[in-house]
């Protein structure tokens, strides 16, 4: 019978140290493992040259490093790359590499599929298929060729990060730890639709940035777009954020997809300004990448620009996110959904 070995990727230095102690290896082996896992591109135990051969053999008998290369990549004319990873059992996740001058951002997935059912989201159409471990989240960075170039990480890929809080918190801890990938907390952003209890844990225990998907300040409209509004209303999400002292450097951004005729009017500008009155945040306006079967359309560029100016006039820092990778299924979830559908068709034709 084939046994699946436990992965080392995704373990903290403390956990690595603990397991080496349990195996009767020198205490410092844990630190050595963290170095090889998070600071180097090695992909086998044999390459860990400062770890004794005996320790390497013992470790390889019990553990797997946990790195899995992407199964495919799509490259956009603008340099954006989309990586597809096999998440096992015929399921797939995506990560997007977005270069922009000196900034190299990686957008990672936190779940396979998603439970949240937002009307505008392609990932939601897959339903929920499983949680990613901290190792599987980190693998999206660890196993791509641009690994060493990455300056920023955003948890804006497939899934709702705060529905997988433990793995997300652990992965951000390793991303930002000195022994880990040593990325500054200011360069890591976790995005949520506003799951309040988990958001509180994040605000209290992490120093990474927070992004909140808002999309309309009006309760009834938001309910139609995002079922989570029934459980955690945006008003409560904003009030919760207000309760925390975020310090000078920690950033809260509000994600706002612009939908034609739905959330792009002056009434929305006024209500957004009222809702966010006491929150130190910036608003990121996002063009909507149309997905199949949705009744929504993107606002046009002139409307988006006008909306931005109106918010700036209200004193709110507002940016428009550049659309990237439009020629390679930019909308999150499109690529993996296509792969999933292909797999299902293959299975049906095999039967």
């Amino acid at each position: 019978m084939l046994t699946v070995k436990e992965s080392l990727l995704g373990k903290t230095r403390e956990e690595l140290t603990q397991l080496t102690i349990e195996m009767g290896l020198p205490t410092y082996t844990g630190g050595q493992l963290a170095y090889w896992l998070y600071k180097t591109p090695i992909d086998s135990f044999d390459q860990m040259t400062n770890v004794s051969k005996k320790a390497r053999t013992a470790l390889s008998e019990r553990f797997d490093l946990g790195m899995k290369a992407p199964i495919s990549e799509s490259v956009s004319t603008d340099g954006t790359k989309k990586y597809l990873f096999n998440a096992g059992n015929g399921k797939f996740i995506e990560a997007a590499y977005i270069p922009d001058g000196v900034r190299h951002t990686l957008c990672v997935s936190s779940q396979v599929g998603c439970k949240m059912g937002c009307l505008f989201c392609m990932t939601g159409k897959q339903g929920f298929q499983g949680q990613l471990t901290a190792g599987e989240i980190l693998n999206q960075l660890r196993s791509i060729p641009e690994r060493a170039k990455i300056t920023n990480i955003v948890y804006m890929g497939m899934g709702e990060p705060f529905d997988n809080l433990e793995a997300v918190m652990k992965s951000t801890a390793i991303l930002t730890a000195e022994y880990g990938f040593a990325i500054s907390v200011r360069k890591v952003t976790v995005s949520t639709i506003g799951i309040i209890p988990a958001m509180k844990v994040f605000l209290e225990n992490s120093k990474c940035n927070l992004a909140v998907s808002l999309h309309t300040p009006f309760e009834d409209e938001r309910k139609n777009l995002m079922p989570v509004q029934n459980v955690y209303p945006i008003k409560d999400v904003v009030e919760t954020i207000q309760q925390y002292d975020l310090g000078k450097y920690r950033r809260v951004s509000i994600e706002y997809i612009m939908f034609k005729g739905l959330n792009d009017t002056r009434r929305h500008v006024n209500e957004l300004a009222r809702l966010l009155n006491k929150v130190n945040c910036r608003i990121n306006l996002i063009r909507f990448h149309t997905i199949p079967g949705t009744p929504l359309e993107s606002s046009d560029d002139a409307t988006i620009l006008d909306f931005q100016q109106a918010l700036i006039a209200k004193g709110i820092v507002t940016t428009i996110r550049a659309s990237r990778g439009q020629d390679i299924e930019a909308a999150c979830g499109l690529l993996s959904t296509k792969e999933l559908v292909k797999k299902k068709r293959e299975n049906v034709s095999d039967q």
Partner: protein
Amino acid sequence: MKTKLKLSKVKVIRQREISPGVFVLSFIRPWDFTAGQVVGLAGHENDEARLYSIASGELDEEVDILYNINPDGKLTPWMAQLNTADNLWVSEPFGSFTGDEEKAWWIASGTGIAPFASMFRTGLFKNKKIIHGGKDLQSFYFHQLFEPELNENYIRCSSRENGEGIYHGRITKYLREHSNLPLDEKYYLCGSAEMVVDARDILIEKGIPFDNIISEIYF
């Protein structure tokens, strides 16, 4: 890792297995609520609370929670072992997936029927049509409640088993085959993300304005 819902201790007064692996757990109602709301449940004050819809009526003395055992989860296998007088930690009710007197379709899969049972037991069943999906004939929880009042407006969709008066197929198949869905009525959806998203797409395809579709998801 502790999440931040405030929890209070209640005592279980009853636990019934209404179908294999599916339970209704009851405790004395400690607060007022609106039919359709959820509560957080946990085994201990510091545990992560999971959300469950209340299945009892607003004026009932007891709160009923409908749940099935998730073998991969921690809470539900533990809950299934609870006996009368055992303790459970519960949050105050919250949420706005609530019903009203207007004409509407209540569409649920599995234990997603719970908020509609609550609305029904609160007296909001006039002008309502229930479409309940389940894998077999034992999946139609609370059918004794719905059947006598709703008659032909209570539709059970069984994906794996045939039965008298039962539609054979998933909810999504039923909706696809159904022509002339009223465009001006509300459609409430509750269940797995997959069912909610698929059913919503079909309703939109059939011309239902998306602001007439109200969804509740499990997470």
